[in-house]
């Protein structure tokens, strides 16, 4: 399941959507908007996507992960729009029969998502400064 929209991300709903009596291990990753990056305070982030391409790539990531690991259920959710610190901006949930696979697949999904998928964030600081964040800073 993939989702890319402006709706709040519900960790409990995600867990229940992937948990299964066939899956002994479930791993949920939540990305949270940080208040501080080094000594720089974030007022809010603004997320934007190339919606059509990003959705296709997220669906493709899910397919690739299902080929590499024995995934029972998988969910990849990214939120868009203006997000304040402590808001969940991205989530990946994976369930597998044994836990090692769930950890590996969830890690691979979030790492690959951040490298490739056309989603951008603009950081708005507390002094009015704003800039597009470059990869590898979070």
């Amino acid at each position: 399941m993939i989702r890319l929209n402006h709706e709040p991300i519900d960790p409990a709903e995600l867990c229940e959507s992937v948990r299964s009596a066939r899956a002994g291990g479930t791993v949920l990753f939540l990305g949270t908007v940080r208040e501080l990056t080094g000594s720089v305070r974030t007022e809010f982030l603004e997320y934007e996507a190339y919606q059509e391409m990003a959705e296709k790539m997220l669906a493709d990531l899910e397919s690739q992960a299902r080929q590499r690991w024995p995934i029972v259920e998988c969910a990849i959710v990214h939120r868009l729009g203006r997000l304040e610190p402590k808001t969940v901006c991205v989530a990946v949930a994976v369930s597998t029969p044994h836990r090692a696979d769930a950890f590996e697949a969830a890690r691979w999904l979030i790492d690959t998502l951040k490298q490739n998928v056309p989603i951008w964030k603009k950081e708005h600081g507390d002094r009015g400064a704003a800039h597009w964040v470059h990869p590898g800073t979070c």
Partner: protein
Amino acid sequence: MSVQTTITVTVQLFAGAREAAGRGTLDVVLSDNGTIGQLRRALSEQHPQLAALAPHLMFAIDTRYADDHTAVAEHAQVAAIPPVSGG
């Protein structure tokens, strides 16, 4: 006398590219049988406000990443993709 045939490609812009251009799409004229590499140069020349960003852009054709050798067709869905930073 040789006739240079050209095509006009509409490029979708996102994030920093959209802000640099001040709009969501730009038209770029390039020679027929042009490539993404030629599109990148033409974008810089025809829209100087994107010249600084152009070397750092990725491009997508029909929602797939394309490299500089990929041919660009006139009605392809072309997008300029600044370095991503999702998550």
